[in-house]
């Protein structure tokens, strides 16, 4: 046998495959940076990177990121959820009505609203997983039903305003150390900086650096395939710079938005679930081959059900965020959000046939959409043309993806 010769060439091929995978990931990040740079250059006085704009950007797009995390799982498991935009509207309407008309305390309303979102997702999940109805149709039904219920509940009215605490979910900031007079005084000219934001950013960058180094040394020790150290360091330095730059940028304005903390926590959580847990592994296995997964003892129905319930929960959260940000419940809240969310997933490289997709890439995909929306508004491009551009970008992103796969 020519085994040894074959082996080395195959190893080389595998290495290059690994490299291609990571190049794809970095390609996505690179395009995001590219588009940020583009709007930096093209907008007047570079307003696209002004701290106030970046803060807005985070707040405006938080709902896409939050729901894209759930949609990732739904698509990976081999389904789709078209109802999320309507759930956003419906949950917002319920929350608004409970706060304004029923005078319920808002923490209780938050809990109820999340439960309603999860229940809607669970109901659709039952039909898809156990009833074996196509998810496209089930959630199309859900989309119509809950949009209709939203309208009939609000009767064309805006319901609001909401208490400060509730609004803070979407537009609050983590309170700042400089509120203590003595610290403020000690900092002198630097007192205007929102130090907490900067400290959290630096700490995040350091933790990320330490963790990826630890993973790398472990992989080395365990004789696993580890990327070259130089690449790892370079990559981490780039990431650290980005994180600290964003943190500094936000620190120049009002500091760290509450919603950014929520988004960050959710991203870390779902990143962990998808890569490190048994549940995550099984969801990917179902998406890759549901028959094989079932015959391996995976409870496919239960997991499909759970991904839908989870999607509903996140859509409920997004509903609260949207209502809190607008400071009112409106009949059109969440209109066509499902399209933004699904587009974010596909721009992030999630496979439409299931089984493949990464949390980090989906978040980048969502940010990509957000930066585009924001930038196009800043340069005064009409809303209709914005849609055209977004559609073209989606096609281009998936087209590049397909092209790369057919080549490799």
């Amino acid at each position, binding site marked *: *046998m*020519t*085994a040894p010769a*074959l*082996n080395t*060439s*195959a*190893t*080389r*091929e*595998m290495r290059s495959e*690994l490299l291609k995978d990571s190049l794809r990931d970095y390609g996505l990040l690179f395009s995001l940076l590219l588009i940020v740079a583009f709007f930096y250059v093209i907008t007047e006085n570079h307003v696209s990177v002004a701290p106030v704009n970046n803060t807005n950007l985070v707040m405006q797009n938080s709902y896409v990121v939050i729901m894209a995390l759930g949609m990732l799982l739904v698509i990976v498991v081999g389904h789709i959820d078209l109802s999320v935009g309507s759930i956003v509207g419906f949950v917002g309407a319920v929350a608004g009505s409970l706060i304004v008309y029923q005078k319920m305390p808002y923490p209780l309303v938050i809990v109820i609203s999340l439960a309603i979102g999860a229940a809607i997702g669970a109901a659709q999940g039952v039909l898809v997983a156990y009833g074996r109805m196509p998810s496209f149709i089930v959630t199309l039904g859900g989309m119509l039903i809950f949009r209709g219920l939203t309208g009939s509940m609000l009767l064309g009215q805006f319901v609001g305003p909401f208490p400060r605490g509730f609004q803070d979910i979407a537009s609050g900031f983590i309170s700042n150390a400089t509120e203590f007079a003595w610290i403020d005084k000690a900092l002198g000219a630097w007192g205007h900086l929102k130090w907490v934001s900067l400290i959290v950013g630096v700490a995040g960058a350091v933790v990320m650096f330490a963790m990826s180094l630890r993973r790398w040394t*472990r992989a080395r020790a*365990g004789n*696993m*395939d580890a990327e070259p150290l130089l690449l790892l360091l370079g990559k981490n330095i780039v990431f650290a710079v980005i994180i600290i730059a964003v943190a500094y940028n936000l620190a120049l304005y009002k500091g760290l938005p509450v919603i950014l903390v929520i988004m960050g926590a959710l991203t870390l959580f779902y990143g962990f679930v998808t890569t*490190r*847990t*048994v*549940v995550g*592994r*099984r969801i*990917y*296995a179902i998406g*890759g*081959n549901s*028959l*094989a*997964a*079932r*015959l*391996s*003892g*995976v*409870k496919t129905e239960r997991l499909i059900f759970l991904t839908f319930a989870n999607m509903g929960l996140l859509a409920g959260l997004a509903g609260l965020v949207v209502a809190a940000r607008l400071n009112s419940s409106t009949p059109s809240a969440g209109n066509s959000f499902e399209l933004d969310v699904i587009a974010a997933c596909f721009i992030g490289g999630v496979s439409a046939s299931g*089984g*493949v997709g990464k949390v980090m890439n989906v978040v980048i995909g969502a940010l990509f959409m957000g930066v585009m929306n924001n930038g196009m508004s800043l340069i005064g491009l009409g809303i209709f043309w914005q849609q055209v551009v977004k559609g073209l970008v989606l096609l281009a992103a998936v087209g590049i993806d397909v092209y790369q796969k057919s080549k490799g």
Partner: protein
Amino acid sequence: MAAILEMRGITKTFPGVKALSDVNLMVEEGEIHAICGENGAGKSTLMKVLSGVHPAGTYQGDIVYRGEVRKFAAIGDSEHLGIIIIHQELALAPQLSIAENIFLGNETAAGGVIDWTQCFQRARALMTKVGLRESPNTLITNIGVGKQQLVEIAKALAKQVKLLILDEPTASLNEADSAALLNLLLEFKAQGMTSILISHKLNEIAKVADKITILRDGSTVETLDTAKEPILESRIIKGMVGREMTDRYPPRNVEIGAELFRIDDWWVEHPQHSGREVIKGVSLHVRRGEVIGIAGLMGAGRTELAMSVFGRAYGRNIRGTATLEGRKLDLSTIEKAIAQGLAYVTEDRKVLGLVLTEEVRTNITLANLEGVSQQGVIDEAREVAVASRYRQALRIRTPSIHQRVVNLSGGNQQKVVLAKWLFTEPKVLILDEPTRGIDVGAKYEIYGIINELAAQGKGVIVLSSEMPELLGVCDRIYVMNEGRFVDEMPAREASQEKIMASIMRQYGTKS
């Protein structure tokens, strides 16, 4: 006789791999030319070069077809000249009729409008030619694999085939359908058609081929002429593996112990048609260290039996009892079946056995993630250790355990499936067609693994439509037909004739 096709010095490289190196193939007009070789020997690549899937310019060497050097840029070019390939995975549209499929892409149409009268007339003529007795209106999904294969051949005839290439045509056919297909080839030969037959089934090749070209590791080893000397299967194998394989089955010498697992009076109804019994009162038992086989024709109900036992993965209204080590089993879900020590290695590894887009590592641990995790969190280091251990133990040839299984050869994919089930630490293993579509060398290794499992005191149940395989690896054989066990015999007293006889005897008493 003149050569209809000559492929000279064909060399084809993929990034990092030389798939073909200086391959020569000479096919004469009117013969059946068999191509043999282990998986990965380059048979399919060679045929892809011939048909234009790999267009001219992407390989070195010449294709001379009917006296001219040809440069095919696409499949259409070679089909136009009468070179038609029938692939192992049939390319039929299941929801279209036989007639529509026969003329798919070659419609009897004028200006884009189909002439149905002509379509049906010609379809009928072609169907008679291939011996397919069905209405041309019947949907493909409603006929068996054997008949679907005939539709493929009719489709080739409709394209004025001059050189018919069949890639593993009998891989999924039962003995009777295979024999019919081979006879059809012989008939076509009598009418002057040339065919190239790619097959793993050496007995078939020995039966119909005029010449046999053997490939190994991307090169031509030799071309044997059956007119000059009768070719024995062992002779072909020697060429394929490059050494004399005196024994196709590893020797085994296992102490058979006490009874381990038994099924009593097992009845199963069809999942869609309630009341139609698919398994009718089957009972079997396996002892520790014993390998039992279940023989039978396609459709006898072997897979249905195995899947119904394995956590009711098939059928409804399942009745009967299953006992392991004297304890009655609760087999109501697959999870419970696995937890109680059952493993079922599925028949179709690509569709039912593997998550092709995932790595070797994750496929191996899929059925026992609890074994590499704590509180639902996977310990990656432990998982890597487990995967590496099985990679070594089963000699899975892969550059890394992080390789996606889609890139592995059939034999190695099968080993990954085996590894997955071994990691669940089963007491009883049911292996459904464990060596289908894998080459002789890998088969031998799989048989070795089966022996080793038996030696560890496990009970092994092998389901196979290849009778020699059952005779080679089993201690005892059950014969199954139409949902019943019709006979049982120790393997050393069994023979293919005896097994066929017990199947036929049942038909005899029925009529």
